[in-house]
């Protein structure tokens, strides 16, 4: 990073947002694990947000609230992550890099950007997380909408101030990352969330990340599951639809065709696991 002139620790969220709004050459640093490699010559000021008391995980007002600078390691150690939604947040955080990077990387930093290795995104999408964006005023936006909000991404002078998940979710989430080694970047991430009511599936959510241009929910496949009695054919149909709905990418970790193939297999497996867990069994 050739042109950095200053590295600042604002004292309040307001000060941080002001510094970011002041100049288009200012950037947020949270854990810094992505920013430290930035080659962006336009960046002159680094605004470190890790000293703003924004590191916490708590249950309050019907939400699980997570501060954006909470590290992935802290999420992994938290009892809430271990038990909420069948432990999907712990499963996903465990798969972020190795243990040392997890001590640095933050939840906000992992959700904020759409680089092909941010493993928390599908899990938070499957839990229907929302973000509190602060730019002088607070505004809530679902994580799914955030990834489509190009206008917001282009603007400067805002930050993710909190991540929220409705705490009244009784279902089970399952996360799976396919990678060449345990700590390598992902070839494909799939996260699934199901609730059970009577004998049928409710609130099904399926999300994909890393293999696709943008992390996203797969509504096409979710529709097939909602209100249905599960069985091998239903899961097969949903998994095939997931595959057919997603455009995949080719990079060092796999070809687009291989990833499409994986989407079907991994989605089916996650659905089976989630349903089995809802019935108190192992898949």
């Amino acid at each position, binding site marked *: 990073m050739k042109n*950095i002139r*200053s*590295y600042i620790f604002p004292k309040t969220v307001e000060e941080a947002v002001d510094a970011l709004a002041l100049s288009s050459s200012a950037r947020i640093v949270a854990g*810094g694990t992505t920013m430290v490699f930035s080659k962006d010559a336009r960046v002159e000021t680094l605004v470190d947000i890790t000293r703003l008391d924004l590191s916490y995980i708590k249950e309050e007002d019907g939400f699980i609230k997570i501060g954006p600078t909470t590290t992935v390691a802290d999420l992994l150690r938290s009892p809430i992550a271990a038990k909420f939604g069948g432990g999907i947040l712990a499963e996903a955080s465990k798969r972020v*890099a190795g*243990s*040392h990077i997890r001590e*640095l990387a933050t939840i906000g930093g992992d959700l904020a950007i759409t680089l092909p290795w941010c493993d928390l995104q599908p899990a938070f999408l499957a839990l229907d997380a929302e973000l509190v964006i602060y730019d002088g005023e607070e505004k809530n936006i679902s994580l799914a909408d955030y990834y489509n909000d190009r206008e917001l991404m282009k603007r400067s002078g805002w930050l993710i101030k909190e991540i929220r998940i409705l705490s009244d979710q009784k279902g089970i989430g399952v996360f799976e990352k396919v990678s060449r080694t345990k700590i390598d970047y992902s070839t494909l991430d799939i996260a699934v969330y199901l609730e059970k009511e009577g004998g049928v599936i409710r609130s099904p959510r399926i999300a994909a990340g890393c293999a696709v241009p943008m992390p996203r929910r797969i509504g096409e496949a979710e529709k097939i599951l909602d209100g249905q009695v599960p069985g091998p054919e239903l899961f097969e149909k949903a998994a095939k639809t997931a595959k057919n709905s997603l455009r995949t990418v080719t990079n060092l970790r796999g070809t687009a065709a291989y990833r499409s193939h994986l989407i079907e297999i991994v989605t089916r497996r996650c659905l089976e696991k989630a349903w089995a867990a809802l019935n108190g069994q192992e898949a």
Partner: protein
Amino acid sequence: MEISCIVNGEKKQFKIEPDETLLNILRREGYLGVKRGCEEGNCGVCTVLMNGRPVNSCVVFGAKADGAEIITVEGLGTPENLNTLQEAFLDEGAVQCGFCTPGFLLSATALLKENPEPSREEVIEALDSNYCRCTGYVKPINAVLAAARKMRGEE
């Protein structure tokens, strides 16, 4: 800019560039036990403890060390007076070329402080960010388990 921090128990002040990594600063200041390897956050030879947690100093902005407590391998035992963990690495043959050893020692130090009785699996997990191209990992893992037993007074 200037930062102040505590390195191996000593108060220090460093003049740094705003975009420098902690790895760069520590090596310039003479802590050569902090090795420079991939500089991409992968190999772990640059591992230090920052406020007790093991981190890759090559991905830490140096500015973040302001007010922090840093421990490098120089802050463990001395050559004349090795600590239990360092001795275990020698006894178990866990050191060959030695380039990775400071990183392994610091990762293991953090683990044993938090968990004096780790399982083999937990040791493997705690060493997942340190590459070794010589030993094949079995001996460093054995060394950490041996040191843990010794520190618990079992050997």
